[in-house]
């Protein structure tokens, strides 16, 4: 039992192994077989059919008879026999094949494999080249050229091609059938094109090969293994073509380009399959063998001595990268020169974009961005994720982080590669987090949709002004609470408490939102105190009440209050007046650069207050300072030894006497004058207010 079973299994495995071997041989030989047959029957579709017949024969015979010594010649001999049978039948029915049939009549009618070997050896090169040209004929749509080339020259099955291109098998099958029909109907000759059209036809061939290569190169880990296989197919096609057309520099250029790109295969993705940009790759993992092959191919291209074409230039760029042992050693000026040449030959948006990147590396991000920005409206790049990705990178280097983040997000939206999307979103988040600027943050806050329009309008008044005052380009994380407080004090320090609090709550709301965005931001409203509305009843001190004040209290208080009212000066300023700086004749006194002006009421009271003193503080405290708390000499009266009346004390006394604050007294004066029709300019001059805006409430109250 056991030996029998064992034997059966071995036989089974052997049969499967033979099938695999046949598949391998087919992939190696089918191109040459089909090429040879096409020369005979002048129809790639027919030629492929006969070659397939030979494959069927191999599948029938080889598992038992074994793989022949020269399987290619075996396949060729069988297929040729079928072709000759076919042509004989056609000759009998169709006079149009007369010429071909006569040719065949003179050809050796033999199944001798040695003859087939001879023939393969002698002719196969030219036939292969013809087959490449016809498979890549411009009369066919690009997708058909690609499918047909892989099918006829790579020996790939329809299923393999479909998997490699992530397409449905019937679609690919259709393409191939139609392509073969088109070639037959249009009677495309099986030949190497002559010089007038050679360049264009060769370009079409190179385009197909490079397209196959890129399809494989852009595949990511975890995808069907057929996709990376495309790189090898393209490289093989390129290497074969280079042998068949050794005088064409662009062929060697393409081979060099592919060899060098393939040399980076191991280095271009990270452990999670995420793409690693060229400049960040571990160059130790570049395949030196392929790099040397790339160098050699480029050298062959240059030795031909014709002006460099697009592939040679691209290869030269790839070689320049490969020559740099580290990214920092890259010869960017040389790469820029090569790109300038490439842009002249091939001014496609993608080439111009890469030129921009090279310029940025050679001459800085701004120079690069200038070039890249010319591509923003390019329709063909609208869905091209490297454009926003590159722009994002340049903007980031220029410190325009918010714009950079938006570009990275757009690139992430456009890419179909999942690990790359993840990477781009990370870069966007980093740009947003480290680099958000105040102006953009405010814009984002004001565009939120979860708050009603009225509130947003109110927030906008506050935050736009705050952003202007601090600077919209300032990074959000560098805005400190004290900076916010200073700006608010400057803008709204004199505003009503209710207004102040409204601004304050807008800033608090903005801060909470920024925190929710995960942005690094200080507690912006930390230094903004909430103001109690009871602190202000500005215009509630009416004229009668003010008049009544003059009858109250002692001479010092009367003089101070009257001076404050008449001058509308801030209490701190008035209390800083020194006797030596008074200009009594002109009803004024100087504090620093600022003049405090009063009227006759104050003028009448001042002499009694000064009473023989010539220097020192005008308004003095009631007591001498305690010995331990010696005030600065400027705040001490040289005559009496008493110190300057403090703001706190003055405020306390006024409040106790009247229930109002000194500030309200000053405000009352401005309100009264405003009511009397004083223009804002005069009020400003009087009060020392820096801007008319802060006087709005007085002039409006008229």
């Amino acid at each position: 039992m056991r030996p029998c079973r064992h034997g059966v299994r071995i036989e089974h495995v052997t049969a499967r192994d033979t099938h695999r071997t046949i598949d391998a041989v087919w992939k190696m030989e089918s191109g040459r077989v089909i090429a040879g047959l096409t020369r005979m029957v002048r129809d790639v579709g027919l030629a492929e059919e006969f070659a397939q017949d030979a494959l069927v024969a191999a599948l029938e015979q080889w598992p038992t008879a074994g793989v022949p010594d020269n399987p290619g010649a075996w396949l060729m001999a069988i297929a040729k026999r079928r072709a000759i049978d076919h042509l004989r039948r056609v000759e009998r029915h169709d006079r149009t094949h007369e010429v071909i049939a006569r040719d065949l009549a003179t050809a050796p009618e033999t199944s001798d494999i040695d003859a087939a070997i001879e023939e393969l050896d002698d002719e196969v090169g030219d036939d292969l080249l013809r087959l490449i040209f016809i498979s890549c004929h411009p009369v066919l749509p690009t997708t058909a050229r690609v499918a047909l080339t892989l099918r006829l020259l790579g020996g790939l099955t329809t299923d393999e091609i479909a998997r490699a291109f992530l397409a449905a098998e019937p679609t690919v099958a259709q393409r191939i059938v139609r392509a073969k029909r088109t070639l037959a109907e249009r009677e495309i000759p099986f030949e190497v094109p002559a010089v007038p059209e050679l360049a264009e036809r060769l370009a079409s061939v190179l385009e197909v090969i490079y397209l196959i290569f890129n399809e494989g190169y852009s595949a990511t880990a975890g995808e069907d293994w057929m996709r990376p296989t495309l790189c090898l197919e393209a490289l093989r096609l390129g290497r074969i073509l280079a042998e068949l057309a050794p005088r064409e520099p662009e062929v060697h250029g393409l081979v060099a380009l592919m060899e060098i790109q393939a040399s980076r295969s191991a280095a271009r993705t990270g452990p999670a399959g995420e793409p690693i940009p060229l400049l960040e790759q571990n160059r130790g993992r570049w395949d030196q063998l392929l790099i040397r092959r790339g160098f050699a191919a480029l050298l062959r291209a240059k030795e031909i001595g014709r002006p460099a074409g697009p592939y040679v230039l691209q290869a030269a760029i790839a070689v320049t990268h490969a020559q740099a042992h580290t990214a920092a050693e890259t010869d960017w000026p040389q790469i820029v020169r090569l790109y300038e040449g490439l842009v002249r030959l091939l001014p496609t948006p993608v080439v111009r974009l890469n030129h921009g990147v090279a310029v940025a590396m050679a001459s800085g991000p701004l120079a690069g961005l200038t070039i890249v920005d010319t591509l923003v409206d390019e329709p063909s790049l609208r869905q091209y994720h490297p454009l926003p990705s590159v722009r994002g990178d340049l903007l980031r280097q220029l410190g325009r982080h918010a714009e950079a983040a938006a570009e990275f997000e757009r690139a992430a939206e456009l890419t179909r590669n999942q690990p790359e999307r993840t990477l781009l979103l990370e870069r966007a988040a980093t740009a947003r987090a480290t680099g958000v600027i105040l102006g953009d943050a405010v814009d984002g806050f004001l565009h939120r949709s979860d708050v009603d329009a009225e509130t947003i309008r109110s927030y906008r008044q506050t935050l736009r002004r705050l952003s202007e005052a601090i600077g919209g380009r300032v990074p959000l994380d560098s805005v400190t609470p004290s900076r916010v407080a200073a700006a608010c004090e400057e803008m709204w320090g004199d505003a009503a408490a209710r207004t102040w609090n409204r601004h304050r709550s807008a800033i608090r709301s903005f801060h909470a939102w920024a925190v929710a965005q995960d942005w690094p931001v200080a507690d912006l409203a930390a230094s903004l105190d909430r103001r109690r509305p009871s602190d202000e009843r500005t215009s509630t001190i009416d004229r009668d009440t003010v008049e009544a004040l003059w009858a109250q209290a002692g001479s010092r208080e009367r003089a101070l209050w009257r001076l404050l009212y008449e001058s509308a000066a801030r209490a701190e300023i008035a209390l800083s007046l020194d006797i030596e700086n008074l200009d009594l004749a002109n009803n004024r006194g100087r504090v620093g650069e600022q003049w405090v002006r009063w009227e006759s009421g104050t003028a009448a009271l001042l002499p009694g207050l000064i009473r023989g003193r010539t220097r020192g503080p005008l308004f003095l405290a009631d007591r001498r300072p305690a010995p331990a708390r010696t005030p600065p000499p400027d705040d001490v009266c040289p005559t009496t030894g008493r110190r300057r009346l403090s703001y706190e004390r003055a405020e306390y006394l006024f409040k106790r006497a009247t229930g109002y604050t000194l500030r309200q007294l000053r405000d009352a004066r401005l309100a009264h004058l405003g009511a009397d029709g004083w223009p804002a300019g005069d009020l400003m001059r009087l009060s020392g207010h820096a801007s008319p805006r802060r006087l709005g409430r007085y002039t409006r109250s008229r």
Partner: protein
Amino acid sequence: MRYLLMTNGDTQPADETMYVEMGKFVAELSQQGVLLATGGLESTGYTVTSRDGEITITDGPFAEAKEAIAGFALIDVRSKEEAVELSRRFWKIAGNGSGRIQRVIGPEDF
């Protein structure tokens, strides 16, 4: 994928016919972009041993010819079967001898 094809020292010496045939075979492999590198090895060499940081270099080993690698070819193929098929074709030309076929680990393995 890449395979390293190795021949051992017991391979029969080439006569003129074999030399020409082998030349054609190698040229064909190059033309098809399959052959990446090829070379022969001297029969003698050195053995390097590293033990706990100590590196020793000695002559040898003086292995039997059939165990020593005499030549190699690095090929770029689509499958194991292609590598085997090419090896088969090689031995059809080379005649008697022995060798090994081993896959070179590449980016596709990571």
